[in-house]
């Protein structure tokens, strides 16, 4: 099975020789014994280092076994609590190391444990980049760090995470776990850097919205079909504009530039659905009755909406030439002209006759969705 063109490594052996099956049988017995051991120990509240190591073994073999990740966290929580409540004097070495890191010894211990666990996750993440539980555990480790450690320590860890997630996205730019995680990381860094201000407002000095916007540009340029990158870009735009304190003209210029970008992409590859989604998003920001997409232009009323609809319908119409078999073009034309009819009424940019023509083409290209086209036809008829 392929994921975005990256072949998945088969975990099971295909070799059905007797020797191989014996080997596999032994492995299964060993695994089951290990599993039983871990479960028994945790039930007995044995949160020792031995148990911890056993969970490492088990998780390396099967990172999808989320209960064991829970157990691992139980153990870690137990250890952290013990460290932080410590009454005993730390050793000379530990004190010296803690001072160097500008941390009290107890917290330094916690930091070291967290770092060790993060290290443990790296080879697993490389091998299973789409395992929810690995990303989740990483998230938990960093959340714990933020809770127990001073900001300057925690933010270093988060910065390292940004590096890691960029690398993971470099390996597979369409891994949505990576993109989701990146948003989490950016939010955490912004919060920590703005000294407790609400990072969401984005007006603090820790604001990363410009660099993140540039990152989406970079990712799109290296691979146009990137739903996640386009989506992230759309999420960043409202904050970006308010961070730049953009006025009416600046906003208009910005929107036009985004339309120019997506049009250029659509001319290069109108068959790529992710591009059409972004085009739809841009159009949605202009729709005053669309509550979900924050407006880009200011003001943005019916006039603006109608003008842009007319412009884009014209632009998309031209894309038909040489791509008469592209269903997305017809879909877009029908959607936008439908909207235009609602906004401006009849006698506008597009005649109903032309719309029926497009629907006919669309039905021919995409017969599997006949039901949907019939519905659309009914709507148009009324």
């Amino acid at each position: 099975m392929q994921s975005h063109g990256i072949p998945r490594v088969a975990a099971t052996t295909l070799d059905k020789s007797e020797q191989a099956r014996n080997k596999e049988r032994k492995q299964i017995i060993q695994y089951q014994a290990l599993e039983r051991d871990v479960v028994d120990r945790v039930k007995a509240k044995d949160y020792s280092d031995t148990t911890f190591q056993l969970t490492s073994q088990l998780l390396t073999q099967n990172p999808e076994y989320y209960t064991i990740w829970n157990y691992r966290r139980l153990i870690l929580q137990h250890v952290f609590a013990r460290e932080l409540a410590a009454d005993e004097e730390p050793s000379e070495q530990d004190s010296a190391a803690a001072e160097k890191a500008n941390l009290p010894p107890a917290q330094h211990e916690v930091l070291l444990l967290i770092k060790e666990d993060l290290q443990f996750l790296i080879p697993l993440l490389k091998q299973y980049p789409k395992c929810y539980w690995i990303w989740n555990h990483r998230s938990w480790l960093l959340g714990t760090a933020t809770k127990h450690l001073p900001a300057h320590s925690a933010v270093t860890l988060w910065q390292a995470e940004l590096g890691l997630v960029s690398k993971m996205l470099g390996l597979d730019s369409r891994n949505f776990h990576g993109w989701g995680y990146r948003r989490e990381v950016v939010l955490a860094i912004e919060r920590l850097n703005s000294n407790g201000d609400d990072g969401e407002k984005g007006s603090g000095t820790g604001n990363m919205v410009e660099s993140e916007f540039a990152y989406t540009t970079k990712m799109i340029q290296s691979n146009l079909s990137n739903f996640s990158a386009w989506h992230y870009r759309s999420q960043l735009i409202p904050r970006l504009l308010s961070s730049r304190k953009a006025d009416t003209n600046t906003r208009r210029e910005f929107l036009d530039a985004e339309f120019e970008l997506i049009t250029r992409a659509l001319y290069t590859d109108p068959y790529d659905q992710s591009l059409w989604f972004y085009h739809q998003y841009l159009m949605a920001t202009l729709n005053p009755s669309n509550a979900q997409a924050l407006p880009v232009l200011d003001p943005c009323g019916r006039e603006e909406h109608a003008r842009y609809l007319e412009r884009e319908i014209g632009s998309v119409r031209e894309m038909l030439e040489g791509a008469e078999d592209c269903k997305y073009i017809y879909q877009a034309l029908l959607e936008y002209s439908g909207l235009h009819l609602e906004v401006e009424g009849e006698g506008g940019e597009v005649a109903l006759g032309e719309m029926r023509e497009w629907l006919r083409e669309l039905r021919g290209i995409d017969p599997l969705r006949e039901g949907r086209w019939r519905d659309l036809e009914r709507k148009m008829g009324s």
Partner: protein
Amino acid sequence: MDSLDNTSWDVVITGTGLPQSLLALSLSRSGKQILHIDRNDYYGGDEAALSLSEAEQWVKKHGGDASENADSAYSHATISHSEAQEEGAKKLGFSRAYSLALTPHLIYARSNLLPAVVSSRTHSQLEFQAVGSWFTVTAPPDGSSSQSRLTRVPSGREDVFRDDSLDLRAKRSLMKFLRFVASYDEESEQQRMKQLKSLPLSVALKQHFGLSSATAVAPLLALALPTVSEAETTMEFAVPRIACHLRSIGMFGPGFSAVLPKWGGLAEIAQVACRACAVGGGVYVLGQGVKNATHAEDTGDSKLRLELTGGEKVLAEWLVGCPRDMPSTISTHNMSRAASAEYMTKSISIVSSPLTSLFPPTAEGGVIPAGAVVWVESASSSSRSVRILVHSSESGECPASQCVLYASLRGDPSYLDIAVQHLLESLAERPKPEVLWRMQYRHHAEAEQPRNTTTSENVVTLQPLSTDIVLEDDVLTSAEQAWRKIMGDGAAEFMKFESREGVDEDE
């Protein structure tokens, strides 16, 4: 080593060029007694990589015209150094700092050679570098004072997206053509391909794909790398070549379609292959060729009787080699040069700059390539263009801060040097990069020789490499055919070996 005289072998392979070495590799686990000889005193044969002093000797040997070099693929070799330099000026490194390939080839990612290198467990001894960017150089019209222009060839969708020299319509048309090329051999496009195949590429682009501007046509020609003129380059030739490039992009990493073996190109692969055969028991002797051979049918026991250049007499069940290494008594190889009028003029130039602008990273966070391909446009559509492979010092072929330029042109050589100069000018580097040293030679194509003719039952002829710069799949399939003949019915899988015990399995 004891004399070879009166020894008996299962297989005698003559010549250590790539085809013969691949065969040796394929036989390296067969348990057969193999004697592998080469009449030169170096490995690699026609595909050898030479140090500076080796190159000088080689040029002396191949300096004459075609008739003096009747049994060689090369002739008309010349060498020239730049003028003596002032103190501190860039100069040549020592001789062994160079490993100049006589026939550098582009190995596309989807070439059949690479999986064979992996399955035969030799990949861990080879280091492959990326061949990243492709460029065209347009010369200024005669008499004009403007400079030659270097343009990067868009080699995929994202490149087309970013290319500012293409307007929206050109982008769309170019993408349409690339989409056609990507599926030209599928059922849906076979009819269309049939219609278009004998049209010249530039004509088909204009009439059927709406692409007529030079900015769109030149890059496609560059990807096809024809040896003939633009007017003679047909769709039939160009489309599969461009498809090979498109289908290879991203196979080993984003942004590049071909690789080059470090330290001397194909010669390195040949050496590793021979080493593998030696480990398997093969015996290697340089400085020996097969002078004479008697047909097996004429001898008592149906073995071949071979006489080596040193006078030794050996018995062999099989004799394998390329036509030029075969003794005339047994091969139908036509020694007359008239039969092969086709030749490529090639030059190797050592340049005094790392030419970094030709080696941008292959992708965001991608590798830095060690090779680049440049297509220098000819003055008119009826004359031929020059193809230049540029290798940086990362290829291991020259010292740091220098580059090696391998230029080739079919036929008349006078434009070859001019093309190299156009390329160097177009980079707009100050000071202008200089050619410190160059050699030039002719590479003759094989006269029409049917593959694997056996004039005797036990003689197998391998197909030599073409004079072109793209490594064809034929080379490996020719070796496979020979292997099958020799192994007979007991043959296992071609080039599929287990790793040897005690040898580290590199990841």
